[in-house]
């Protein structure tokens, strides 16, 4: 599903956030991306979502070389990805339902289908009774779950989550991680960046760990390559 070939990312100003990173996340798998703060986790996810572009190397997403995607086609790629952020990026000018419905509206889903899917997504994150509520009135964990509902409502093949449990207490964090594991059971490929090492150990999924932009350990070696452990 995702394959990184020797990816380096140098930000304007010269800082190299990723150096020669390679891995392969097969379709239908769930994996964790770990590393201390500043290791390059967010950068790696941004490269997949085409928020940033690599300085070197190539990324193959679902068989497509992202280097060949022009800016005009970025929306098309993003429609197949669900993205979840630490600061959930909810819009406070509209109720929960409208927040979750956004991906469907953009893709021209019919009204009835939209209602059905938004309900289903809210049900999966346990917030079905909150659809008319303003998101600002929800707790941090609830807001995060609304963000997750928005990311899965259009049934994307790939789910990217950047520190989805960053602000939550351990119990809520675990719940959220289990939610992702459940989506994965239904066939969604999931990549979660997190520095919560204890929780990750409990969940027992393959892990890529980054250190200062380089791969430290990698459970997802590119087939046929020697790996890059340092």
């Amino acid at each position, binding site marked *: 599903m995702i394959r990184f070939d020797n990816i380096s990312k140098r930000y304007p100003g010269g800082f190299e956030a990723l150096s020669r990173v390679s891995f392969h996340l097969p379709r239908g798998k769930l994996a964790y991306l770990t590393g201390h703060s500043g290791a390059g986790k967010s950068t790696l996810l941004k490269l997949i979502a085409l*928020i940033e572009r690599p300085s070197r190397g190539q990324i193959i997403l679902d068989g497509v070389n992202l280097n060949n995607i022009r800016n005009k086609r970025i929306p*098309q790629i*993003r429609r197949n990805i669900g993205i979840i952020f630490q600061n959930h990026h909810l819009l406070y000018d509209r109720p929960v339902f409208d927040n979750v419905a956004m991906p469907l509206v953009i893709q021209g*889903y019919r009204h009835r289908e939209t209602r059905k899917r938004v309900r289903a997504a809210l049900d999966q994150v346990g917030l079905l009774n909150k659809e008319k509520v303003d998101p600002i009135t929800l707790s941090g964990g609830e807001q995060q779950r609304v963000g997750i509902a928005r990311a899965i409502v259009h049934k994307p093949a790939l789910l990217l989550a950047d520190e989805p449990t960053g602000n939550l207490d351990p119990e809520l964090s675990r719940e959220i991680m289990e939610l992702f594991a459940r989506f994965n059971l239904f066939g969604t490929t999931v990549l979660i960046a997190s520095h919560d090492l204890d929780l990750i150990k409990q969940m027992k999924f393959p892990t890529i760990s980054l250190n200062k932009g380089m791969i430290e350990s990698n459970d997802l070696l590119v087939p046929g390559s020697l790996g890059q452990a340092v």
Partner: protein
Amino acid sequence: MPKKQRKGPEKNSKLVSYLTHHLQMLIASLGYLSRQPVSTFMTSAVIAIALALPAGLYIALDNASQLSADWDGTTLISLFLKDDVNIKTVEKLAARLGQSKEIEKVSIINRDQGLKQFQKISGFGDAIELLDENPLPHVITVQPVVDQQSPDKVVHLVKTLQNEKLVELAQLDMLWVKRLYTLLDVAQRGVWIIGSLLALAVLLIIGNTIRLDIQNRREVIEVSKLIGASDAFIRRPFLYTGMWYGISGGLIAWLLIAVSLGIMDEPVQKLAALYHSSYELSGLNSNDIATLIAISCILGLGGSWLAVGRHLSEIEPS
């Protein structure tokens, strides 16, 4: 899930969802504006004033040229004939001139007739009795066909008539008509220049307002881009907002002009009465109104297009 009767498609066809979104944004942007009535009104009012000024001047000019068109009808060329011409020849000449397509009407003032009129008007009746010979020549008055577009033709006609063998002197009564035309021409260009500058101002006002709107809705734009909205999709509500600003500005401008004309009407009537004439200010006809609204609509779209083109690409998710 059991297979039941066939469901309809989940998504609308591209065309339907495209049109649906257009319609939704058309209405949503109107809703957005009506939720902040004060700032919407202020912006529209500024646009309206900028539009009403050139439109009002245009109407003033229109009225002035109608006025001068009325007076053109009385533009006369007097042909003072040579002394020794007898009345038969005068009649022949008058008949010949009457044929010309540049001439509307010809009439003859017989020298005896002329003298009687002069006696009456001047009060020199007795003194003139003493003259043993009539000092006045026969006169032919020519009313030219006036082509509004080219007042020079009248002057040219005067020159041609001056070259007639029997004519001693050809005199155009109303040289000022030409001056008025020239003046109107100058004023017309002035209105065009003012109009263009103010149109540019409207473009900038709307552009700046939309720029602020874009900044205020930064969050929405970022999220929309993240979940795969196309640029066109994100642009749409802003373009419609600009269009509505333009249209409401145009409507208020129409109101301003109508009120101004209402205020001017009475004094203009009085002025006309002083000249023993009646004159009605002509206001905006439906054509003018449609043009005004169309222009303001286009300026609104144009202004927001400029802002959107410049500022939307600056906002990227990060």
